[in-house]
């Protein structure tokens, strides 16, 4: 999404706007939600950091809508447009998440790139956003796509270019739907509910974890892009190789020596796939595996 913000930023800057774009993320690990902000204005932009009241929110991973900690809908109001990188009808998304504003998803018949293709996903999300803003010319957007792929292979540049433009063209039905945001509201903001922070007992105030097995609650399985699947016909019940070498202790072995992968905590590192002496563990795309679970 950092790249999507850069593409959009370049295109808006080339169109003549003052621009600011910035990513924001915490610990650098797979699966952690990351954000990027783009501001455009016809005057110098002085504020920075998080955008508190966005005009448009672009969600590349629809799964984030269901994770409250991701805060995707923070600050959204009736005036905030939401684009979701999904082929589900916009109205269904709007109803499911009780979104207060207008929702847009891909039009029927459009196939977005696979999510694990990050570059193509960034390009197509940027294309959708550019078209919804409606102030960026197609050629300007194309140049931005190419500029942001500098240094990559000719094939990769072409994929980015064609995916971005395909998205831009597909979104003709919502051309310029997002109006330019007005100035800030006239009323002064409400007072913050500041408190006086008191001193706590040191045992509580130290950043320590006393409770057992809190990691159970962190579903690190959500970080996975690929899933290991055991083919039990070929597993020779060696009973220890995969379960011992899994760095996340996500494989347990039953009494009868059958290994079981705990998918809530398997991060998809594929170590087990490499080490299984019987070659009994397959690597499959997580997206494909999930799609199969939903429509078996």
């Amino acid at each position, binding site marked *: 999404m950092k790249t999507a913000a850069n593409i959009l930023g370049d295109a808006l800057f080339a169109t003549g706007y003052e621009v600011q774009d910035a990513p924001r993320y915490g610990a650098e690990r797979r699966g952690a939600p990351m954000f990027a902000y783009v501001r455009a204005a016809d005057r110098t932009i*002085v504020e920075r950091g998080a955008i508190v009241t966005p005009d448009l929110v672009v969600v590349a991973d629809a799964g984030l809508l269901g994770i409250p900690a991701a805060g995707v809908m923070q600050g959204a109001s009736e005036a905030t447009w939401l684009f979701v990188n999904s082929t589900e009808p916009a109205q269904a998304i709007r109803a499911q998440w009780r979104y207060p504003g207008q929702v847009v998803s891909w039009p029927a018949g459009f196939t977005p790139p696979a999510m694990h293709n990050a570059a193509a996903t960034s390009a197509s999300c940027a294309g959708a956003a550019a078209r919804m803003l409606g102030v960026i010319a197609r050629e300007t957007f194309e140049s931005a796509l190419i500029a942001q792929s500098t240094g990559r292979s000719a094939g990769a540049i072409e994929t980015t270019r064609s995916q971005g433009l395909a998205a831009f063209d597909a979104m003709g039905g919502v051309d310029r739907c997002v109006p330019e945001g007005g100035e800030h509201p006239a009323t002064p903001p409400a007072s913050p509910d500041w408190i006086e922070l008191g001193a706590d007992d040191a045992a509580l105030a130290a950043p*320590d974890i006393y409770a057992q097995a809190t990691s159970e609650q962190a579903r690190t399985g959500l970080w996975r892009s690929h899933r290991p699947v055991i083919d039990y016909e070929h597993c020779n019940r060696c009973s220890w190789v995969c379960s011992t070498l899994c760095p996340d202790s996500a494989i347990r072995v039953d009494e009868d020596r059958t290994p079981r992968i705990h998918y809530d905590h398997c991060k998809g590192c594929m170590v087990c796939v490499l080490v299984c002496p019987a070659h009994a563990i397959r690597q499959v795309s997580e997206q494909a595996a999930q799609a199969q679970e939903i429509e078996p």
Partner: protein
Amino acid sequence: MSRLLMTGNAAAAWGARLAGVEYVPAFPITPQTEIIEMLAGWCERGEMSARLTMYESEHSMVTGAASAAATGVRTFTATSSQGLLYAMEMVFAAPGWRAPFVLVNVSRALASPITLEPDHTDVLAARDSGFIQIHCATCQEVLDSVLIAYRLAEHPRVRLPVLVNQDGFHLSFTREPVDLPEEARVRAFLPPFDAHQAGFRASRPVSQVVAVLGGSPYSYFRYQVHLAQREALDVYDELAAEFAAAFGRHHGAIETYRCDDAEVVFVLIGSLAGQAKQAADRLREAGLKVGVVRPRLLRPYPASALRAALRGKQAVAVVDQNLSMGSGGVLYAELAGALQGCEYMPLLVSFIGGLGGRDIGDAEFFAMANEARDAARRREVPEPRLLYTARELRELRKLQAIAGTGGVQEETR
């Protein structure tokens, strides 16, 4: 000159490139890494003739930088947060060598706990080292400050290392339009390093930084660094004027925004100034005359410029994005010291905010300005306030409940 979108990190790298640096000792750390990646790429492709060396730690990196500078080589380096702390022994040693080089620090809050986001406790740990400190609020300022910093560092009346500070994320990773000056015009402003008597020449031996000394000669040399810093105040003003004449951008020792008729003034450093300015505009619409004062130079401390800007104001809200444990905000204490004993000075109210990158919203700027004004009317200095809301504490208590309370009873908290 061309106007490009670039991050603060790219601006720092361009500053070094345009300054014609010859040596770049490096060690990566988030959020500074992009600076050395860019410089390494340019060096590798021959677009820059500098030598870049990857060290095994920040401690050796700063040793390498100071040593190179002491031999008359224009040197650039960069770090952040824990890296600056790891280098700290040499950060304090280098100014005593009178070694002129530029170090860009990308502010990131310190452990523990760990975070990647910015506050200024890292760079303020280097406050008393003898490094000159320039604090930036925009990506343009990062680039321009690196250029000015070399003139300042290498000035014969100064000859000290300069630390140029930018905030992680809010500048380091944020792209915005930056004017990239032409190399020829930069060279006219910043000619190659003339090391004067520093540096090594054939048949002119010199032993730098000699011996263990007793208190009396020690006092002399230490105080000379202090005096060189005081000289740097005047030299800085001259350089800022020269830079403005050459490039049309004036970066004073302090920046003032809508201060002339202000009743309440925010004092803060770094990129938070943007939000403060926006809040000042809105507060004025709401009927309170608010201004912003932002020291760019923190060492040497521009006390008289601050006194001049604040004389006659009713109240100052000092927003410290740092915390000196057991005392409070560093900017607040320093400003109180600078205004002490002077007439017509405003009442100072201390706020601690933005630690570890916590956002400070418009609502909080409004409330700070109002609290400062009310305090001035009551003529009562309130207790320092941490910007922290009931909602934040509720969220924290939820996390603590998951983590377990270490035997602390519910009712005691």
